[in-house]
C-alpha cells in the first residue's frame, strides 16, 4: 500500500518528520518498506514567465526566449518547442539544474545552441517525470504550460508550484489488517501511534429528487456470499478530468488519474479501502441487478477483453439476461464509463473473502479489488464508501446524485467483544502496565472498554481473543519496552542417540578429508535415466510435486545418488581438479496406503581426482573408516551382483562395485561409477560414489565402546604365501585363516598379491603376515606352528596351497 503523506495530513497531523513517522509507524505495527519524495531528481527547476520569443537566426524551428525566473534580469533560453507563447508560465531548468531524460537524471548547464547562448532549458512534462494524466490540459510533445491549477509565482520551485512535492510511503500491510489498506485506516493507526486527534468526518451528499426504485431493481439471491449490496444512481453525467488535488493524491498512491468517474471510484477505494464499481445503466438489461451464482457454462467477457467461462460456485452481478461483472473481481466488457454515458450506477458491496479468492484464482485474474475483498472486508464500510463517492460527485460537479439508493443489507451488525483482563495481559506479556494506561491505548485505537469487555470498532474484524487484545496493548506500549527475561524452571536436554550417531558419522567423514555438501531434495525424473536405473526400478516410484517450478525439481528423490553425481559433474565442469564430498540427506520413499512417505537418512559420498590418485580402494578406505567409527565391528564387503537390493547397482562399473553387508543385510553400496553414467554427467575422469543407509547401520552398530586390556605377552608372527585361483576373493582366504587359527589370531595383514612368472596362468599368489597372541602366556613356537598347520589344512580344502 502506497500512502500519500499529503492525503494522510487531511486527517491527522503527526507533528514529526518523515523519518520519525516511518520508524514509529513500523514499531507500532504498520511496517514501512520505503519512502520517497516526489520528483527527487528535480533540482533548481523553477516557474518562469516567457517575456519574449523570437525565431532563432540560424534555425528554422528553434526560438530564442527571454524568461523571467524571478532573478531581476531575465535569462535567455533557446527552445525547440513550438507551443510556447509570450506570457506563458513554464518550468525552467536553470543553469546547473537536474531533470529527467529518458528515465535518467541529467544535468542541465548553460551552453550555445547554433551559436546562440542558452542559459537553461524549458521543460516538458516528461522532463519533470509526469504525464498528461497528471495534467490533462498539457500536451506530450511540447513544453508544459502551467494552467490555472498551478501557482504562477515566478521563481518558485516547480515541485511546489505544481503540487509535485508529496512524499509517498510504502507500507507492508499484514493480511489480518485489510482495514489498513486505506488512507483512513492508516490515519487511524497514525493517530493512535502519535496520540494525535483524528479528523475524519462522515461524508454527506445533498442529492436530487428521484427514486432509485423507478430506475433500477436490486436483488441479492446469495446473501451468504454477498452480505451487503448498495447501489446508487448518478444522472446527467459530466465526464471530465478531476481537479488537481484529487489527481495528485491518486498519483502519490500509484494510481493513474483517468477521468472524474474512474478517479472517484479509485479515490474511494484508496481512502476507505473499499472497492467501488461504476457502470453505465444503458447496458443493464431490464434495469435489474441480480447478485447470484453463475450458471454452469455461462460466459462473460471481462473489461480486459478476455472471454471467461464461469462455474456455478462463482458469484456474479447479473442483469435480466447476463452476468455484467464477476463479483469483487472484475466488471464486464461494456460496464465501463464512456464519453457518451449519461447515467451511472455506483456499486458499493461486500462479498465473501474466500469466495472472491477462489474465483479470482480459478479465473487467473487477481485485481486490486479482489486482493482487497479476499482478506475479508466489513459490510459496514459499504455505506461510508458510497456516501463518500456521492459527496465527491457533487463536489466535482460530475453529475446529479439521485437522493435515494438501494441497500440490501444482511451483514453482521454486532461488534466483536472480548474479555478485558489487565492482570492476564501483564502476566502474558511479562509487563507491569497500569490498567488505566491499557484502557487509554485501546481507546486510542478505537476500541471501547466497558463492563470488563473490549468492544472492537466495526472495522476491526481480527480481534477474537485475549491474546489479540494483549497484542494491541503491546504494540502501543512498544514491544521494545517489554523487559527481557530468562525462562524459569529447570530444563535438561541432550541430543538423541540418533542425532549423536549422525554427528559421529559426519565427524568421521570430515576427519577423513571429505567435504560436506547440501543438495536439493527434489530432482528431475530424467535423472533416473542419467544414473542408468532400470526402467522397472522401484526407485522410479516417487512423491510427485503437482505444481513444480520446473521438471528439474519436480519429484522428491528416492535415491541420493543423482544428487551426488550432480555435484561431481558441476565441480568437474568448474575445472576443480579434485572433489571429495558427502551429504547426510533424506530420501523420500512413497509407502503404499500411507498418506505420507518415509524419509530415511542416507550418507551419499562422491569423489574423483583428475590425477587418478583416487581409486576404488581410496573410497573403500573411507567406507571402512566410517564403519569403524560408527561401531560396526563385523561387516562384509562383497562384489555386488544383479541380486543386490540396491537398484543403484546399475549406476556402477559392473566389475568395481561392492555392497556392505552386516548380518547378511545390505546396508550400503559403493564403487566406481559406470562409464555411461560418467558420460551422462559429462565427467571426464573416473569417479567414485557410495550410498549408506544410516538408520540400518545404526541398528547394527555397537555404539557402546569397551576397553580391551593391553597385551601382557608378546605376539608371534608367521608369514605365509598361498597360491589359489585368481577368481577367489581374498576376503574368503582371510575368513578361512581366521576361523582356523581361532582366538589366538590377533591380526591378519595382506602384504602382497602376485600374478605372473612362476605362478600358473589363472592363479595368484597371496601373502599374509599373521600375528598371533595369547592373553594367558607367551605363545610357544609349537603352538604357533600348530595354528599355521590348521590354517593351511583349511585352505587346502578350498584348493588353496602353500606356495613353494
Amino acid at each position, binding site marked *: 500500500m502506497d500512502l500519500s503523506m499529503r492525503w494522510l495530513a487531511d486527517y491527522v497531523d503527526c507533528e514529526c518528520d518523515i523519518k520519525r513517522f516511518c520508524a514509529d509507524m513500523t*514499531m507500532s*505495527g504498520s*511496517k514501512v518498506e520505503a519512502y520517497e519524495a516526489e520528483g527527487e531528481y528535480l533540482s533548481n527547476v523553477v516557474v518562469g514567465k516567457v517575456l519574449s520569443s523570437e525565431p532563432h537566426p540560424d534555425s528554422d524551428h528553434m526560438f530564442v526566449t527571454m524568461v523571467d525566473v524571478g532573478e531581476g534580469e531575465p535569462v535567455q533560453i533557446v527552445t525547440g518547442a513550438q507551443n510556447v507563447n509570450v506570457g506563458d508560465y513554464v518550468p525552467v531548468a536553470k543553469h546547473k539544474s537536474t531533470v529527467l531524460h529518458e528515465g535518467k537524471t541529467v544535468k542541465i548547464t548553460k551552453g550555445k545552441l547554433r551559436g546562440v547562448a542558452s542559459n537553461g532549458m524549458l521543460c516538458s512534462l516528461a522532463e519533470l517525470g509526469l504525464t498528461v494524466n497528471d495534467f490533462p490540459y498539457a500536451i506530450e510533445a511540447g513544453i508544459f504550460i502551467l494552467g490555472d491549477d498551478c501557482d504562477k509565482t515566478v521563481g518558485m520551485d516547480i515541485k511546489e508550484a505544481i503540487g509535485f512535492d508529496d512524499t509517498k510511503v510504502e507500507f507492508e500491510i*499484514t493480511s*489480518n*489488517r485489510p482495514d489498513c489498506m486505506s488512507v483512513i485506516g492508516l490515519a487511524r493507526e497514525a493517530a493512535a501511534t502519535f496520540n494525535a486527534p483524528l479528523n475524519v468526518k462522515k461524508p454527506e451528499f445533498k442529492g436530487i429528487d428521484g427514486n432509485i426504485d423507478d430506475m433500477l431493481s436490486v436483488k441479492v439471491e446469495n446473501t451468504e456470499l454477498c452480505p451487503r449490496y448498495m447501489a446508487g444512481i448518478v444522472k446527467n453525467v459530466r465526464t471530465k478530468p478531476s481537479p488537481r488535488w484529487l489527481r495528485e493524491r491518486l498519483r502519490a498512491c500509484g494510481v493513474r488519474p483517468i477521468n472524474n468517474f474512474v478517479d472517484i471510484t479509485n479515490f474511494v477505494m484508496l481512502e476507505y479501502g473499499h472497492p467501488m464499481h461504476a457502470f453505465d445503466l444503458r447496458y443493464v438489461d431490464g434495469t435489474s441487478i441480480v447478485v447470484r451464482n453463475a450458471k454452469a457454462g455461462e460466459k462473460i467477457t471481462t473489461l480486459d477483453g478476455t472471454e471467461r467461462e464461469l462455474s456455478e460456485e462463482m458469484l456474479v452481478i447479473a442483469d435480466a439476461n447476463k452476468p455484467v461483472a464477476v463479483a469483487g473481481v472484475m466488471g464486464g466488457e461494456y460496464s465501463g464509463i464512456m464519453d457518451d454515458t449519461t447515467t451511472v450506477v455506483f456499486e458499493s458491496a461486500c462479498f465473501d473473502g*474466500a469466495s472472491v*479468492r*477462489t474465483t479470482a484464482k480459478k479465473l487467473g485474474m487477481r485485481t486490486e479489488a479482489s486482493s482487497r475483498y479476499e482478506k475479508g472486508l466489513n459490510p459496514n464500510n459499504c455505506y461510508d464508501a458510497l456516501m463518500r463517492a456521492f459527496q465527491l460527485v457533487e463536489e466535482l460537479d460530475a453529475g446529479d446524485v439521485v437522493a435515494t439508493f438501494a441497500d440490501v443489507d444482511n451483514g453482521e451488525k454486532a461488534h466483536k467483544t472480548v474479555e478485558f483482563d489487565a492482570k492476564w495481559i501483564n*502476566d*502474558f*506479556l*511479562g*509487563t507491569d502496565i497500569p490498567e488505566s494506561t491499557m484502557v487509554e491505548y485501546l481507546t486510542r485505537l478505537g476500541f471501547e472498554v466497558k463492563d470488563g469487555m473490549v468492544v472492537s470498532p466495526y472495522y476491526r474484524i481480527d480481534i477474537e*481473543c*485475549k*491474546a*489479540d487484545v*494483549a*497484542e494491541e496493548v*503491546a504494540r502501543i506500549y512498544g*514491544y521494545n519496552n*517489554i*523487559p*527481557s*527475561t*530468562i*525462562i*524459569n*524452571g529447570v*530444563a*535438561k*536436554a*541432550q*541430543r538423541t542417540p540418533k542425532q549423536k550417531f549422525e554427528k559421529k558419522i559426519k565427524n568421521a567423514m570430515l*576427519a577423513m*578429508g571429505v*567435504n*560436506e*555438501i*547440501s*543438495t*536439493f*531434495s*527434489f530432482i528431475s525424473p530424467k535423472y533416473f535415466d542419467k544414473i542408468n536405473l532400470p526402467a522397472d526400478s522401484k526407485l522410479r516410484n516417487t512423491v510427485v*510435486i*503437482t505444481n*513444480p*517450478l520446473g521438471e528439474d*525439481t519436480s519429484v*522428491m528423490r528416492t535415491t541420493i545418488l543423482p544428487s551426488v553425481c550432480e*555435484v561431481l559433474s*558441476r*565441480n568437474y565442469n*568448474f575445472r576443480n581438479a*579434485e572433489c571429495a*564430498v*558427502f551429504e547426510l540427506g533424506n530420501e523420500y520413499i512413497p509407502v503404499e496406503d500411507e498418506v*505420507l512417505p518415509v*524419509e530415511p537418512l542416507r550418507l551419499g559420498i562422491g569423489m574423483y581426482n583428475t590425477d587418478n590418485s583416487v581409486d576404488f580402494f581410496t573410497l573403500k578406505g573411507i567406507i571402512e573408516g566410517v564403519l569403524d567409527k560408527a561401531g560396526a565391528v563385523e561387516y562384509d564387503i562383497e562384489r555386488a551382483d544383479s541380486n543386490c537390493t540396491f537398484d543403484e547397482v546399475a549406476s556402477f562399473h559392473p566389475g568395481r562395485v561392492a555392497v556392505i553387508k552386516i548380518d547378511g543385510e545390505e546396508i550400503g553400496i559403493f564403487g566406481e561409477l559406470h562409464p555411461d553414467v560418467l558420460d551422462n554427467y559429462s565427467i571426464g575422469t573416473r569417479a567414485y560414489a557410495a550410498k549408506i543407509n544410516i538408520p540400518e547401520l545404526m541398528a547394527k552398530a555397537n555404539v557402546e565402546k569397551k576397553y580391551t586390556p593391553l597385551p601382557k605377552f608378546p605376539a608371534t608372527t608367521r608369514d605365509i604365501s598361498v597360491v589359489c585361483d585368481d577368481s577367489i576373493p581374498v576376503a574368503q582366504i582371510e575368513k578361512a585363516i581366521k576361523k582356523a587359527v581361532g582366538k589366538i589370531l590377533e591380526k591378519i595383514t595382506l602384504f602382497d598379491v602376485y600374478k605372473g612368472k612362476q605362478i600358473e596362468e589363472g592363479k595368484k599368489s597371496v601373502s599374509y603376515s599373521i600375528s598371533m597372541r595369547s592373553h594367558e602366556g607367551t605363545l610357544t613356537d609349537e603352538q604357533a606352528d600348530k595354528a599355521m598347520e590348521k590354517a593351511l589344512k583349511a585352505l587346502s580344502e578350498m584348493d588353496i596351497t602353500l606356495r613353494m
Partner: protein
Amino acid sequence: MKDQLLSIQARAKEQLESITDPKNLEDFRVKFLGKKSEISNILKQMGKLSPEERPVMGQLANKIRSDIEESISQRSSSIKAEMDKIKLQAETLDVTLPGKAVKVGNPHPLNAVLEEVEEVFLGMGFDIVEGPEVETDHYCFEALNMPKHHPARDTQDTFYINDNVVLRTQTSSVQIRTMEKMKPPIRIISPGRVYRSDAVDATHSPLFHQIEGLVIDKGITMSDLKGTLELLMKRLYGENAEIRLRPHHFPYTEPSAEVDLMCFNCQGKGCSMCKGEGYVELLGAGMVHPKVLEGCGIDPEVYSGFAFGIGLERITMGRYSINDMRLLYENDMRFLEQF
C-alpha cells in the same frame, strides 16, 4: 721421576688442545694412558724407588693419570657438542617452504551455523526434534490456524503433492506434532528443510532451512521470548548484538513479532548493507496462539508459550558475508573449502 711425570702431564695438556677429531682423541688416549704409554713405563720402574718415595710417586702418577682421563672425557664431550652443532647446522631447512597438506573436510556452512545454534539451545535446555518434510495440510496449515482459503497462505507459495499433502512451507508443523505427543513443559527446537515455490535467485530458493523453536509451560511470557532470542543473538554474534522486536502478523502466534538484528556495519544508523534501515530482518516469533494450543489439547488458560522460526540461510549468509544464496546449493569445492 717426578719431573718426568710432570713433563708428561704438561705435554698431554698441550697436545689435547689441538685434537678436534674423536679418532685422534682415541690415539691420544692410547698414547698417554695405554699399556705402552710413558706413564705405564714409568710406573714399571717404581720398584727402583725407595719405600718412602714409592707411595708419593705412586700417588702423583695416579693423579696425573686421572687428570688426563678427566681432560679426555671433557674434550670428548666438547668435540661431540661441536660435531652435533655442525650436523644440525647442515640440516637447516627453509621453513618457508610449503607444508605437507593433511586434508580435513569442511562442514557445509549451513550446518556449521546450525550446529552453533543447536549448542546454544541445548545449553538452554531445548531438545532437538525432527519432523517430516512431506507433510499433511493439517500439520502445515490447518492446525496452525490457517484454514483453507486463509489469506496468509498466499504469502507461502506452496508445493502440492495432492490436495491433502504438501511440502512443508515452515518448520512450524513440528510444533503441532510435538505438542500432540509431549505434554508441557516443552522446550524444543526443530531444524529442517522447508519448501516454497520461489524461483532461484540471489536471495531466494525453492528449498531453504528453518529452525523452529517452541516453549510451552505455565507462566511463559513475551518477555521470556525476548530474553531467549537476545541470548541466542549474543551467543551467535557477540555481546554487542542488539535486536528489536516489531509487531507483525502470523496466524499461529498472537502477539506476533518480526525480529531485526541491528546492522553491524552502521550500528543502527542506516547504511547500504541494511538498505538504510539500520536493522536487518532476522526471524519471526510470537506467543503461541490460544487456538493452536487448544487444537493440540493444551489448555491456554493454564499454559502459555512462545515460538519462533529462524531462517538458517539468512543467519549463515550474514555470518560469512555470503551475498548469493545459490552458492550454498552449488557445492563448488572452492566455496566449500572456505568453511
